[in-house]
Protein backbone atom coordinates (compact mmCIF):
# COMPACT_ATOMS: atom_id res chain seq x y z
CA UNK A 1 0.00 0.00 0.00
CA UNK A 2 2.71 2.48 1.07
CA UNK A 3 4.83 1.30 -1.84
CA UNK A 4 1.97 1.99 -4.25
CA UNK A 5 1.47 5.52 -2.92
CA UNK A 6 5.17 6.26 -3.11
CA UNK A 7 5.34 4.81 -6.61
CA UNK A 8 2.52 6.97 -7.91
CA UNK A 9 3.83 10.03 -6.11
CA UNK A 10 7.26 9.62 -7.70
CA UNK A 11 5.74 8.83 -11.07
CA UNK A 12 3.71 12.04 -11.00
CA UNK A 13 6.80 14.04 -9.98
CA UNK A 14 8.84 12.49 -12.78
CA UNK A 15 6.25 13.30 -15.44
CA UNK A 16 5.40 16.74 -14.08
CA UNK A 17 9.06 17.74 -13.93
CA UNK A 18 9.48 16.38 -17.44
CA UNK A 19 6.63 18.58 -18.64
CA UNK A 20 8.11 21.55 -16.80
CA UNK A 21 11.23 21.26 -18.95
CA UNK A 22 9.17 22.48 -21.90
CA UNK A 23 7.09 25.02 -20.04
CA UNK A 24 9.54 27.13 -18.06
CA UNK A 25 11.19 30.23 -19.49
CA UNK A 26 14.69 29.72 -18.21
CA UNK A 27 17.40 27.34 -19.29
CA UNK A 28 18.56 26.86 -15.71
CA UNK A 29 15.06 25.93 -14.63
CA UNK A 30 14.55 23.65 -17.62
CA UNK A 31 17.77 21.75 -17.02
CA UNK A 32 17.18 21.30 -13.34
CA UNK A 33 13.55 20.32 -13.94
CA UNK A 34 15.02 17.52 -16.02
CA UNK A 35 17.35 16.70 -13.13
CA UNK A 36 14.38 16.49 -10.76
CA UNK A 37 12.65 14.20 -13.21
CA UNK A 38 15.69 11.93 -13.29
CA UNK A 39 15.94 11.95 -9.50
CA UNK A 40 12.34 10.77 -9.30
CA UNK A 41 13.10 8.02 -11.82
CA UNK A 42 16.16 7.03 -9.79
CA UNK A 43 13.99 6.80 -6.70
CA UNK A 44 11.55 4.61 -8.65
CA UNK A 45 14.41 2.28 -9.53
CA UNK A 46 15.33 2.14 -5.84
CA UNK A 47 11.72 1.26 -5.17
CA UNK A 48 12.17 -1.71 -7.52
CA UNK A 49 14.90 -2.80 -5.08
CA UNK A 50 17.71 -2.05 -7.49
CA UNK A 51 19.63 0.07 -4.98
CA UNK A 52 22.83 0.47 -6.93
CA UNK A 53 21.22 1.30 -10.24
CA UNK A 54 18.84 3.77 -8.63
CA UNK A 55 21.46 5.62 -6.61
CA UNK A 56 23.97 5.71 -9.45
CA UNK A 57 21.26 7.04 -11.78
CA UNK A 58 20.69 9.95 -9.41
CA UNK A 59 24.43 10.52 -9.03
CA UNK A 60 25.20 10.51 -12.72
CA UNK A 61 22.19 12.52 -13.77
CA UNK A 62 22.70 15.30 -11.22
CA UNK A 63 26.33 15.55 -12.28
CA UNK A 64 25.55 15.52 -16.01
CA UNK A 65 22.78 18.08 -15.58
CA UNK A 66 25.07 20.37 -13.60
CA UNK A 67 27.48 20.34 -16.54
CA UNK A 68 24.74 20.39 -19.16
CA UNK A 69 23.17 23.47 -17.59
CA UNK A 70 26.25 25.57 -18.24
CA UNK A 71 26.34 24.41 -21.85
CA UNK A 72 22.65 25.11 -22.37
CA UNK A 73 23.16 28.56 -20.90
CA UNK A 74 26.26 29.27 -22.94
CA UNK A 75 25.08 28.11 -26.34
CA UNK A 76 21.52 29.37 -26.29
CA UNK A 77 20.69 31.70 -29.14
CA UNK A 78 19.32 34.38 -26.83
CA UNK A 79 19.27 35.33 -23.18
CA UNK A 80 18.92 32.07 -21.26
CA UNK A 81 16.85 33.35 -18.35
CA UNK A 82 14.93 36.52 -18.93
CA UNK A 83 13.21 36.01 -22.27
CA UNK A 84 10.19 33.88 -23.07
CA UNK A 85 11.44 30.76 -24.77
CA UNK A 86 10.17 27.69 -26.50
CA UNK A 87 12.07 24.45 -26.20
CA UNK A 88 10.17 22.68 -28.97
CA UNK A 89 10.94 22.45 -32.65
CA UNK A 90 8.89 20.95 -35.46
CA UNK A 91 5.86 20.72 -33.22
CA UNK A 92 3.50 18.71 -35.38
CA UNK A 93 5.93 15.94 -36.23
CA UNK A 94 7.20 15.85 -32.66
CA UNK A 95 3.75 15.61 -31.12
CA UNK A 96 2.70 12.97 -33.63
CA UNK A 97 5.80 10.88 -33.09
CA UNK A 98 5.74 11.10 -29.31
CA UNK A 99 2.03 10.28 -29.10
CA UNK A 100 2.56 7.29 -31.35
CA UNK A 101 5.49 6.00 -29.34
CA UNK A 102 3.62 6.54 -26.08
CA UNK A 103 0.58 4.61 -27.29
CA UNK A 104 2.81 1.82 -28.57
CA UNK A 105 4.77 1.47 -25.34
CA UNK A 106 1.79 1.92 -23.03
CA UNK A 107 -0.30 -0.65 -24.88
CA UNK A 108 2.68 -2.96 -24.93
CA UNK A 109 3.09 -2.60 -21.18
CA UNK A 110 -0.56 -3.26 -20.54
CA UNK A 111 -1.24 -5.97 -23.11
CA UNK A 112 1.86 -8.17 -23.06
CA UNK A 113 1.41 -11.27 -20.92
CA UNK A 114 4.32 -10.60 -18.54
CA UNK A 115 6.07 -13.81 -17.43
CA UNK A 116 5.98 -14.96 -13.85
CA UNK A 117 9.17 -14.56 -11.86
CA UNK A 118 11.25 -17.72 -11.82
CA UNK A 119 13.78 -18.08 -9.05
CA UNK A 120 14.71 -15.35 -6.56
CA UNK A 121 16.96 -12.33 -6.94
CA UNK A 122 20.50 -12.77 -5.59
CA UNK A 123 21.28 -11.71 -2.05
CA UNK A 124 23.62 -8.89 -3.00
CA UNK A 125 22.62 -7.22 -6.23
CA UNK A 126 25.69 -5.01 -6.55
CA UNK A 127 27.91 -8.02 -6.14
CA UNK A 128 25.98 -9.87 -8.83
CA UNK A 129 26.27 -6.83 -11.09
CA UNK A 130 30.02 -6.73 -10.56
CA UNK A 131 30.37 -10.42 -11.36
CA UNK A 132 28.33 -9.90 -14.51
CA UNK A 133 30.50 -7.00 -15.63
CA UNK A 134 33.75 -8.79 -14.99
CA UNK A 135 32.43 -12.16 -16.15
CA UNK A 136 30.38 -12.81 -19.27
CA UNK A 137 29.89 -9.11 -19.98
CA UNK A 138 33.62 -8.41 -19.90
CA UNK A 139 33.35 -7.84 -23.61
CA UNK A 140 31.21 -4.79 -22.85
CA UNK A 141 33.94 -3.25 -20.78
CA UNK A 142 36.59 -4.12 -23.29
CA UNK A 143 34.59 -2.25 -25.90
CA UNK A 144 33.60 0.65 -23.65
CA UNK A 145 37.26 1.38 -22.80
CA UNK A 146 38.40 2.32 -26.31
CA UNK A 147 35.10 4.09 -26.93
CA UNK A 148 35.71 6.32 -23.91
CA UNK A 149 39.27 7.02 -24.95
CA UNK A 150 38.01 7.89 -28.41
CA UNK A 151 35.36 10.14 -26.86
CA UNK A 152 37.98 12.04 -24.88
CA UNK A 153 40.24 12.46 -27.89
CA UNK A 154 37.48 13.39 -30.29
CA UNK A 155 35.85 15.76 -27.81
CA UNK A 156 39.07 17.59 -27.08
CA UNK A 157 40.07 17.76 -30.75
CA UNK A 158 36.70 19.17 -31.73
CA UNK A 159 36.48 21.62 -28.86
CA UNK A 160 40.05 22.83 -28.71
CA UNK A 161 40.66 26.26 -30.12
CA UNK A 162 44.34 25.88 -29.38
CA UNK A 163 46.21 22.61 -29.76
CA UNK A 164 49.58 21.49 -28.50
CA UNK A 165 51.25 23.11 -31.48
CA UNK A 166 49.84 26.48 -30.44
CA UNK A 167 51.03 25.87 -26.92
CA UNK A 168 54.42 24.27 -27.40
CA UNK A 169 55.47 25.58 -30.78
CA UNK A 170 55.89 23.69 -34.05
CA UNK A 171 58.67 21.51 -32.70
CA UNK A 172 56.78 20.97 -29.41
CA UNK A 173 59.79 22.22 -27.49
CA UNK A 174 58.67 25.57 -26.16
CA UNK A 175 58.92 25.69 -22.36
CA UNK A 176 57.00 27.10 -20.68
CA UNK A 177 54.02 26.55 -22.91
CA UNK A 178 52.30 29.61 -24.26
CA UNK A 179 48.85 29.70 -22.66
CA UNK A 180 46.23 32.41 -22.31
CA UNK A 181 46.17 31.83 -18.57
CA UNK A 182 49.64 31.54 -17.00
CA UNK A 183 50.74 29.17 -14.28
CA UNK A 184 49.86 25.60 -13.36
CA UNK A 185 51.77 22.40 -13.83
CA UNK A 186 54.55 22.36 -16.39
CA UNK A 187 54.62 26.13 -16.68
Amino acid at each position, binding site marked *: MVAAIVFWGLAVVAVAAGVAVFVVD*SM*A*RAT*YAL*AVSFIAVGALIILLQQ*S*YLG*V*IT*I*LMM*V*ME*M*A*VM*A*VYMVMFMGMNP*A*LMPMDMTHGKKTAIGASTGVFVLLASGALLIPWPERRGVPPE*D*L*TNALGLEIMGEKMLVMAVVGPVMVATIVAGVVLAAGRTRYDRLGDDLRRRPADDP*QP*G*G*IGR
Partner: protein
Amino acid sequence: MPETVLTTVPAGWAALAGIVLCTLAFFAAALDSALSARAEGAGRGGWLAPAWSTARLLRQRRRTVVAADTLLLRVGAAGMLVGSFLMVAVIPLGRWTLADLDVGVVWFNTVDVMVWALVWLAGWGANSVHGLVGGYRFLAHGLAYELPLMFALVAPAIAAGSLRVGDAAGAQDRLWFVVWMPVAFVIFLVGVTGFSVWGPFAAALGADVAGGVLAELSGVDRLVMQAGRYAFLAAGAAFSVPLFLGGGAGPFLPEWAWVAVKTVAVLAVLVWLRRKLPVFRPDRFLEIGWVVLLPAAVAQDLVVSLVVVWKG
Protein backbone atom coordinates in the same frame (compact mmCIF):
# COMPACT_ATOMS: atom_id res chain seq x y z
CA MET B 1 35.52 -10.78 5.55
CA PRO B 2 34.35 -9.96 9.07
CA GLU B 3 30.66 -9.25 9.31
CA THR B 4 29.66 -6.46 11.63
CA VAL B 5 26.20 -6.38 13.01
CA LEU B 6 24.71 -2.96 12.79
CA THR B 7 21.41 -2.24 14.45
CA THR B 8 19.14 -0.12 12.32
CA VAL B 9 17.37 2.15 14.76
CA PRO B 10 13.76 3.28 14.24
CA ALA B 11 13.30 6.32 12.01
CA GLY B 12 12.33 8.46 14.97
CA TRP B 13 15.99 8.64 15.98
CA ALA B 14 16.51 10.92 12.99
CA ALA B 15 15.70 13.78 15.37
CA LEU B 16 18.69 12.88 17.52
CA ALA B 17 20.92 12.48 14.45
CA GLY B 18 19.86 15.92 13.29
CA ILE B 19 20.67 17.44 16.65
CA VAL B 20 24.08 15.75 16.74
CA LEU B 21 24.84 17.03 13.24
CA CYS B 22 23.82 20.58 14.15
CA THR B 23 25.94 20.42 17.30
CA LEU B 24 28.96 19.33 15.29
CA ALA B 25 28.33 22.09 12.74
CA PHE B 26 28.10 24.61 15.56
CA PHE B 27 31.32 23.26 17.03
CA ALA B 28 33.06 23.76 13.68
CA ALA B 29 31.78 27.33 13.40
CA ALA B 30 32.71 28.08 17.01
CA LEU B 31 36.19 26.70 16.67
CA ASP B 32 36.68 28.67 13.49
CA SER B 33 35.66 31.95 15.05
CA ALA B 34 37.71 31.25 18.16
CA LEU B 35 40.78 30.68 15.99
CA SER B 36 39.98 33.84 14.02
CA ALA B 37 39.59 35.90 17.15
CA ARG B 38 42.89 34.63 18.50
CA ALA B 39 44.80 35.26 15.28
CA GLU B 40 43.32 38.70 14.77
CA GLY B 41 43.60 39.77 18.37
CA ALA B 42 39.90 40.59 18.44
CA GLY B 43 38.55 41.61 21.79
CA ARG B 44 35.26 39.79 21.49
CA GLY B 45 33.91 37.13 19.22
CA GLY B 46 35.31 33.82 20.38
CA TRP B 47 33.50 30.55 20.88
CA LEU B 48 30.01 32.00 21.02
CA ALA B 49 30.30 34.18 17.92
CA PRO B 50 28.29 31.76 15.73
CA ALA B 51 25.36 32.12 18.12
CA TRP B 52 25.51 35.88 17.80
CA SER B 53 25.80 35.67 14.04
CA THR B 54 22.75 33.44 14.00
CA ALA B 55 20.84 36.00 16.05
CA ARG B 56 22.00 38.71 13.67
CA LEU B 57 20.88 36.85 10.57
CA LEU B 58 17.54 35.96 12.14
CA ARG B 59 16.96 39.63 12.79
CA GLN B 60 18.14 40.76 9.38
CA ARG B 61 15.72 41.18 6.55
CA ARG B 62 15.91 39.05 3.42
CA ARG B 63 16.59 40.64 0.06
CA THR B 64 16.20 39.76 -3.58
CA VAL B 65 17.98 41.28 -6.52
CA VAL B 66 15.95 42.76 -9.36
CA ALA B 67 14.81 40.02 -11.77
CA ALA B 68 16.58 37.35 -9.73
CA ASP B 69 15.51 33.72 -10.02
CA THR B 70 14.44 33.55 -6.40
CA LEU B 71 13.20 29.98 -6.57
CA LEU B 72 16.54 28.61 -7.72
CA LEU B 73 18.41 30.83 -5.28
CA ARG B 74 16.44 29.55 -2.29
CA VAL B 75 16.66 25.94 -3.45
CA GLY B 76 20.42 26.31 -3.65
CA ALA B 77 20.77 27.95 -0.24
CA ALA B 78 18.40 25.72 1.72
CA GLY B 79 19.49 22.63 -0.20
CA MET B 80 22.91 22.76 1.43
CA LEU B 81 21.37 22.15 4.85
CA VAL B 82 19.07 19.40 3.55
CA GLY B 83 21.93 17.70 1.71
CA SER B 84 24.09 17.46 4.79
CA PHE B 85 21.24 15.77 6.66
CA LEU B 86 20.89 13.21 3.88
CA MET B 87 24.59 12.53 4.03
CA VAL B 88 24.76 11.65 7.73
CA ALA B 89 21.83 9.25 7.43
CA VAL B 90 24.18 6.44 6.34
CA ILE B 91 26.94 7.07 8.91
CA PRO B 92 26.86 4.54 11.73
CA LEU B 93 27.31 5.85 15.26
CA GLY B 94 29.07 2.87 16.79
CA ARG B 95 26.60 0.00 16.45
CA TRP B 96 23.60 2.05 15.47
CA THR B 97 22.66 3.39 12.13
CA LEU B 98 19.61 5.03 10.65
CA ALA B 99 19.93 3.51 7.20
CA ASP B 100 22.16 0.52 6.60
CA LEU B 101 22.22 0.85 2.81
CA ASP B 102 23.95 -1.85 0.80
CA VAL B 103 25.30 1.01 -1.32
CA GLY B 104 26.09 3.45 1.49
CA VAL B 105 29.35 4.64 -0.07
CA VAL B 106 27.61 5.42 -3.36
CA TRP B 107 24.90 7.24 -1.45
CA PHE B 108 27.51 9.49 0.16
CA ASN B 109 28.95 10.15 -3.28
CA THR B 110 25.54 10.99 -4.68
CA VAL B 111 24.81 13.54 -1.99
CA ASP B 112 28.17 15.22 -2.41
CA VAL B 113 27.52 15.57 -6.13
CA MET B 114 24.27 17.37 -5.30
CA VAL B 115 26.40 20.23 -3.98
CA TRP B 116 27.47 20.98 -7.54
CA ALA B 117 23.91 21.76 -8.42
CA LEU B 118 23.17 23.64 -5.20
CA VAL B 119 26.12 26.01 -5.23
CA TRP B 120 25.67 26.77 -8.90
CA LEU B 121 21.95 27.39 -8.43
CA ALA B 122 22.60 29.75 -5.53
CA GLY B 123 25.13 31.63 -7.63
CA TRP B 124 22.96 31.72 -10.72
CA GLY B 125 19.72 32.61 -8.99
CA ALA B 126 21.04 35.85 -7.52
CA ASN B 127 21.33 37.64 -10.89
CA SER B 128 24.57 39.21 -9.79
CA VAL B 129 27.94 38.99 -11.54
CA HIS B 130 29.78 38.12 -8.33
CA GLY B 131 27.43 35.23 -7.61
CA LEU B 132 27.61 34.03 -11.18
CA VAL B 133 31.40 33.93 -11.21
CA GLY B 134 31.33 32.16 -7.83
CA GLY B 135 28.91 29.48 -8.98
CA TYR B 136 30.93 28.67 -12.10
CA ARG B 137 34.13 28.63 -10.07
CA PHE B 138 32.66 25.95 -7.88
CA LEU B 139 31.90 23.75 -10.88
CA ALA B 140 35.49 24.19 -12.07
CA HIS B 141 36.69 23.01 -8.67
CA GLY B 142 34.19 20.17 -8.77
CA LEU B 143 35.57 18.93 -12.09
CA ALA B 144 38.97 18.73 -10.46
CA TYR B 145 38.22 17.14 -7.09
CA GLU B 146 35.24 14.89 -7.83
CA LEU B 147 36.89 12.04 -9.76
CA PRO B 148 39.82 11.73 -7.31
CA LEU B 149 37.27 11.73 -4.48
CA MET B 150 35.33 8.91 -6.15
CA PHE B 151 38.46 6.80 -6.52
CA ALA B 152 39.37 7.54 -2.91
CA LEU B 153 35.93 6.28 -1.85
CA VAL B 154 36.45 3.10 -3.82
CA ALA B 155 39.65 2.15 -1.95
CA PRO B 156 37.95 1.16 1.36
CA ALA B 157 35.20 -0.52 -0.62
CA ILE B 158 37.74 -2.76 -2.35
CA ALA B 159 39.37 -3.69 0.95
CA ALA B 160 36.04 -4.42 2.61
CA GLY B 161 34.56 -6.11 -0.44
CA SER B 162 31.38 -4.18 0.13
CA LEU B 163 29.78 -0.81 -0.42
CA ARG B 164 28.15 -0.97 3.00
CA VAL B 165 29.55 1.66 5.35
CA GLY B 166 29.29 -0.69 8.31
CA ASP B 167 31.31 -3.38 6.50
CA ALA B 168 34.07 -0.90 5.78
CA ALA B 169 34.25 -0.03 9.47
CA GLY B 170 34.18 -3.69 10.45
CA ALA B 171 36.97 -4.63 8.05
CA GLN B 172 39.44 -2.53 10.00
CA ASP B 173 39.52 -4.40 13.27
CA ARG B 174 43.21 -5.15 12.95
CA LEU B 175 44.58 -2.25 10.96
CA TRP B 176 42.88 1.05 10.19
CA PHE B 177 42.59 1.83 6.52
CA VAL B 178 44.22 5.20 7.03
CA VAL B 179 47.49 3.40 7.78
CA TRP B 180 47.78 1.54 4.51
CA MET B 181 45.77 3.83 2.25
CA PRO B 182 46.98 7.27 3.33
CA VAL B 183 46.75 8.73 -0.18
CA ALA B 184 43.07 7.83 -0.41
CA PHE B 185 42.50 9.37 3.04
CA VAL B 186 44.15 12.65 2.11
CA ILE B 187 42.28 12.85 -1.19
CA PHE B 188 39.06 12.06 0.67
CA LEU B 189 39.69 15.02 2.97
CA VAL B 190 40.43 17.19 -0.07
CA GLY B 191 37.06 16.13 -1.42
CA VAL B 192 35.33 16.93 1.89
CA THR B 193 36.73 20.46 1.92
CA GLY B 194 35.72 20.66 -1.72
CA PHE B 195 32.04 19.86 -1.33
CA SER B 196 31.83 21.93 1.87
CA VAL B 197 33.11 24.94 -0.12
CA TRP B 198 35.61 25.27 2.69
CA GLY B 199 39.06 26.79 3.10
CA PRO B 200 41.16 26.15 -0.01
CA PHE B 201 37.98 25.44 -1.99
CA ALA B 202 36.14 28.56 -0.92
CA ALA B 203 37.02 30.37 -4.14
CA ALA B 204 33.30 30.33 -4.94
CA LEU B 205 32.81 32.53 -1.86
CA GLY B 206 36.11 34.34 -2.21
CA ALA B 207 37.07 37.81 -1.10
CA ASP B 208 38.21 38.53 -4.65
CA VAL B 209 34.62 38.31 -5.91
CA ALA B 210 33.15 40.06 -2.85
CA GLY B 211 31.77 36.86 -1.37
CA GLY B 212 30.75 35.25 -4.67
CA VAL B 213 27.74 33.03 -4.18
CA LEU B 214 27.08 34.59 -0.78
CA ALA B 215 27.35 38.17 -2.07
CA GLU B 216 23.62 38.81 -2.37
CA LEU B 217 22.30 36.61 0.44
CA SER B 218 21.09 38.12 3.68
CA GLY B 219 18.98 37.13 6.64
CA VAL B 220 17.81 33.55 6.93
CA ASP B 221 18.85 32.75 3.35
CA ARG B 222 22.44 33.37 4.28
CA LEU B 223 22.00 31.53 7.55
CA VAL B 224 20.82 28.27 5.97
CA MET B 225 23.53 28.33 3.33
CA GLN B 226 26.31 28.95 5.85
CA ALA B 227 24.86 26.40 8.27
CA GLY B 228 24.71 23.92 5.39
CA ARG B 229 28.40 24.42 4.66
CA TYR B 230 29.41 23.74 8.23
CA ALA B 231 27.04 20.78 8.41
CA PHE B 232 28.55 19.33 5.24
CA LEU B 233 32.00 19.73 6.70
CA ALA B 234 30.88 17.92 9.83
CA ALA B 235 29.18 15.18 7.81
CA GLY B 236 32.29 14.67 5.69
CA ALA B 237 34.50 14.47 8.76
CA ALA B 238 32.09 11.98 10.34
CA PHE B 239 32.13 9.82 7.22
CA SER B 240 35.91 9.52 7.34
CA VAL B 241 35.58 7.66 10.65
CA PRO B 242 33.92 4.42 9.44
CA LEU B 243 35.73 4.62 6.13
CA PHE B 244 39.32 5.17 7.21
CA LEU B 245 39.60 5.52 10.99
CA GLY B 246 38.30 2.18 12.20
CA GLY B 247 34.75 3.26 13.05
CA GLY B 248 34.04 2.82 16.74
CA ALA B 249 37.19 0.86 17.48
CA GLY B 250 39.22 2.01 20.48
CA PRO B 251 39.96 1.19 24.10
CA PHE B 252 37.98 2.05 27.25
CA LEU B 253 35.27 4.20 25.73
CA PRO B 254 32.06 2.85 24.18
CA GLU B 255 31.94 2.70 20.39
CA TRP B 256 29.67 5.69 19.87
CA ALA B 257 32.02 7.83 21.97
CA TRP B 258 34.99 6.84 19.85
CA VAL B 259 33.10 7.78 16.68
CA ALA B 260 32.34 11.16 18.22
CA VAL B 261 35.93 11.74 19.37
CA LYS B 262 37.39 10.86 16.00
CA THR B 263 34.87 12.98 14.15
CA VAL B 264 35.62 16.00 16.31
CA ALA B 265 39.34 15.49 15.80
CA VAL B 266 39.08 15.34 11.99
CA LEU B 267 36.70 18.29 11.99
CA ALA B 268 39.07 20.34 14.13
CA VAL B 269 41.94 19.66 11.74
CA LEU B 270 39.86 20.73 8.75
CA VAL B 271 38.76 23.92 10.51
CA TRP B 272 42.29 24.72 11.61
CA LEU B 273 43.68 24.22 8.10
CA ARG B 274 41.41 26.89 6.65
CA ARG B 275 43.42 29.69 8.19
CA LYS B 276 46.73 28.21 7.08
CA LEU B 277 46.17 27.39 3.45
CA PRO B 278 45.65 29.78 0.55
CA VAL B 279 42.60 29.41 -1.64
CA PHE B 280 43.23 27.03 -4.54
CA ARG B 281 42.53 29.14 -7.58
CA PRO B 282 40.21 27.19 -9.86
CA ASP B 283 42.21 27.88 -13.01
CA ARG B 284 45.30 26.33 -11.45
CA PHE B 285 43.72 23.58 -9.41
CA LEU B 286 42.06 22.06 -12.46
CA GLU B 287 45.43 20.75 -13.62
CA ILE B 288 46.44 19.62 -10.15
CA GLY B 289 43.25 17.60 -9.83
CA TRP B 290 43.67 15.82 -13.13
CA VAL B 291 47.40 15.39 -13.37
CA VAL B 292 48.35 14.82 -9.73
CA LEU B 293 45.35 13.78 -7.63
CA LEU B 294 43.60 11.52 -10.14
CA PRO B 295 46.62 9.32 -11.00
CA ALA B 296 47.52 9.22 -7.30
CA ALA B 297 44.05 8.00 -6.41
CA VAL B 298 44.09 5.38 -9.17
CA ALA B 299 47.52 4.19 -8.05
CA GLN B 300 46.22 3.92 -4.50
CA ASP B 301 43.33 1.77 -5.71
CA LEU B 302 45.77 -0.43 -7.60
CA VAL B 303 47.89 -0.94 -4.48
CA VAL B 304 44.83 -1.68 -2.38
CA SER B 305 43.41 -4.20 -4.82
CA LEU B 306 46.76 -5.95 -5.21
CA VAL B 307 47.14 -6.22 -1.44
CA VAL B 308 43.61 -7.55 -1.12
CA VAL B 309 44.14 -10.16 -3.84
CA TRP B 310 47.50 -11.18 -2.45
CA LYS B 311 46.15 -11.65 1.07
CA GLY B 312 42.84 -13.21 0.16
